[in-house]
């Protein structure tokens, strides 16, 4: 019974708990049991890198707090109180959010002793809705990566479908945990694809809401103009339920939009009849810099991935959507170069606060003065990816360079935004409700294959990063398995604050594929569980 509970959707669990057919404590114990069965040891500083059988999604499992939260939900239910919409639903939090009295590490040595004195808004809202936090899950250090291999906490998460492969990143712990039934939901963040890419790699649903839809208060900042907290779930309805809870204005974040939050579950089953969904030739390929030739090169997407997009278009067409082909998104290929500049400048700025003075790691060596303290602390505390981003950010934002690099990258962001504005323009040529693309150019890659080459790793985000530049919402959906039984994801991108429409289209695709054989397949780590 308890293993079964861990596989239920948040929606199903919440129903059962509300009807008192299952208690919040039972749901929580089932999730904790699943963690014990599949997760193996949590990531730790200087831990082993070569664990290849378990999921290792967690940095911190907060069992006692979870049980206390679950008991409180059951107590409220017993008193006849109306619990929140997620009452008793177990969830995990990417360890980039501050949670009061819980270790909040950003997967970095420099925050390895940081117990947050306050709780991030999206986490506070999940808890207020009755959801039960199981713990903090692993990520790339400070979210800087697309594979989780850069975490200072090893073993890093593995892909539940094939633990020799990466779960993606940076919300890799979130996607891996949800795929393996270690909580029905997870709170992730997406700066260039960090929710959608791991969701695609792990066969789950991941949504990057519109920039400003979800408060960033309590999120340890990476690229402040790009970061978006969002849901990771196994079903579209669960993602909608979670977005209902976490979205909305927040007095602690001036960029949290004042736009009213609709009920994202209300129109979920209304289908796609009459919707215009676009396909773009600019998302059928990846363009990257070849170090050997010194030239930019384009390659078509692998056939299995391109076919998955076309199959999804057919399904949506059969469900009544109008598929619009040939939508130009001419600046897609510039997303990564512009991101290399903008995100590094913002990261370097955000990382200057880590200095060994107010919180976090401080060197045990005897520094000769304050500057020496900074240098030694930061040298010990940061791994290679933060160091690289600080150096790059400082270089491209230097006064003499900012015109060529930073200002130009911000102008390119306008051009990328312009592509989306034109595609979604109600008076334009295409009048799209959503653009349908692949989420990633490849399925999950083997551990060690890409790590170390920061340029190649960044290009894993080529199809997801334009939505971050433009600020528009996007959702990744499971769309099948490839010949190696690895998940493939497709992505729907819509105009600002069109989450309800995207979720409705996503649900239509999910419903249209519910009977397909791949939907019944389970991740390899669940064999025998």
């Amino acid at each position: 019974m308890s293993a079964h509970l861990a596989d239920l959707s948040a929606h199903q669990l919440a129903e059962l708990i509300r009807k008192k057919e299952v208690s919040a404590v039972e749901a929580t114990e089932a999730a904790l049991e699943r963690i014990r069965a599949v997760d193996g040891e949590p990531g730790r500083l200087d831990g082993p890198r070569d664990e290849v059988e378990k999921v290792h999604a967690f940095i911190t499992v907060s069992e006692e707090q979870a049980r206390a939260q679950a008991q409180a939900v059951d107590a409220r239910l017993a008193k006849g109180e109306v619990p929140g919409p997620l009452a008793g639903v177990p969830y995990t939090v990417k360890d980039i959010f501050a949670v009061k009295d819980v270790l909040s590490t950003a997967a970095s040595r420099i925050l390895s002793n940081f117990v947050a004195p306050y709780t991030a808004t999206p986490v506070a809202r999940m808890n207020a809705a009755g959801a039960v936090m199981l713990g903090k899950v692993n990520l790339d250090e400070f979210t800087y990566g697309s594979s989780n291999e850069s975490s200072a906490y090893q073993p890093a998460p593995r892909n539940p479908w094939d633990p020799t492969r990466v779960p993606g990143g940076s919300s890799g712990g979130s996607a891996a945990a949800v795929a393996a039934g270690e909580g029905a939901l997870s709170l992730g963040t997406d700066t260039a694809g960090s929710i959608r890419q791991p969701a695609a790699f792990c066969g789950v649903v991941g949504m990057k809401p519109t920039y400003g839809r979800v408060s960033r208060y309590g999120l340890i900042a990476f690229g402040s103009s790009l970061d978006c907290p969002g849901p990771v779930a196994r079903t579209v309805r669960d993602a909608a339920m979670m977005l209902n809870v976490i979205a909305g204005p927040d007095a602690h974040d001036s960029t949290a939009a004042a736009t009213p939050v609709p009920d994202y579950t209300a129109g979920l089953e209304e289908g796609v009849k009459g919707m215009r969904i676009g396909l773009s030739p600019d998302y059928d390929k990846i363009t990257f810099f070849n170090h050997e030739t010194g030239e930019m090169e384009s390659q078509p997407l692998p056939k299995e991935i391109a076919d998955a997009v076309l199959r999804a278009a057919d399904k949506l067409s059969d469900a009544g959507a109008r598929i619009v082909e040939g939508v130009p998104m001419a600046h897609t290929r510039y997303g990564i170069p512009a991101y290399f500049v903008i995100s590094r400048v913002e990261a370097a700025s955000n990382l200057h606060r880590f200095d060994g003075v107010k919180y976090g790691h401080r060197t045990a060596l005897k520094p000769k003065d304050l500057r020496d303290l900074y240098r030694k602390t930061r040298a010990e505390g940061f791994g290679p990816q933060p160091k690289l981003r600080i150096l790059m950010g400082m270089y491209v934002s230097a006064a003499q360079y900012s015109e060529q690099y930073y200002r130009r990258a911000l102008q390119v962001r306008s051009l990328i935004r312009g592509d989306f504005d034109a595609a979604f323009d109600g008076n334009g040529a295409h009048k799209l409700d959503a653009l349908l693309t692949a989420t990633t150019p490849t399925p999950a890659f083997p551990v060690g294959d890409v790590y170390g080459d920061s340029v190649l790793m960044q290009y894993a985000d080529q199809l997801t990063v334009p939505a971050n530049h433009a600020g528009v919402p996007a959702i990744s959906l499971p769309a099948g398995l490839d010949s190696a039984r690895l998940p493939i994801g497709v992505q729907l991108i819509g105009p600002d604050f069109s989450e309800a429409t995207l979720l409705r289209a996503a649900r239509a695709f999910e419903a249209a594929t519910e009977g397909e054989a791949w939907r019944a397949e389970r991740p390899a780590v669940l064999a025998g569980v």
Partner: protein
Amino acid sequence: MWKVEWWQRGMITFVMHYLALPDDYSIAGWPDLGWYTARGACKMPDQISPELFNHLVELAALELTAEEAEYLRDQLNKQLKSIEELAAIPIPEGTPPAAHGVPFPPDVRAPLRKDQAAQAPEAAGIKAGAPQTSEGYFVVPGIPHEELD
């Protein structure tokens, strides 16, 4: 072979200026700057020389092992080559730089909150997280200073 654009020349000038190098300075692998800029074509050397790299490390308040420095400088140069593509993008006149992708018109923008002072309820918890405090202050080693003329 690389065509040297105006902005690359600008960068070279900047690097020279940044390191306070004389105009006829030569860098290993980059033997003759005059030839380089005048001919407008040669294999692009690393944009970030070891000297410039060390300067960035100092500004970034970092210390690196030799092995780390070699890896990071190599990666920086590779990333810079990849972003050179930005220079080739035709940007129409008047294209504004975008601080955010999403415009924040008044109906979307959060209203200003009242400017009110409030005591942080977590002050004790915040200080408890500091490596070293004394009587409510953060304690650090001596602050380096220079005598001004």
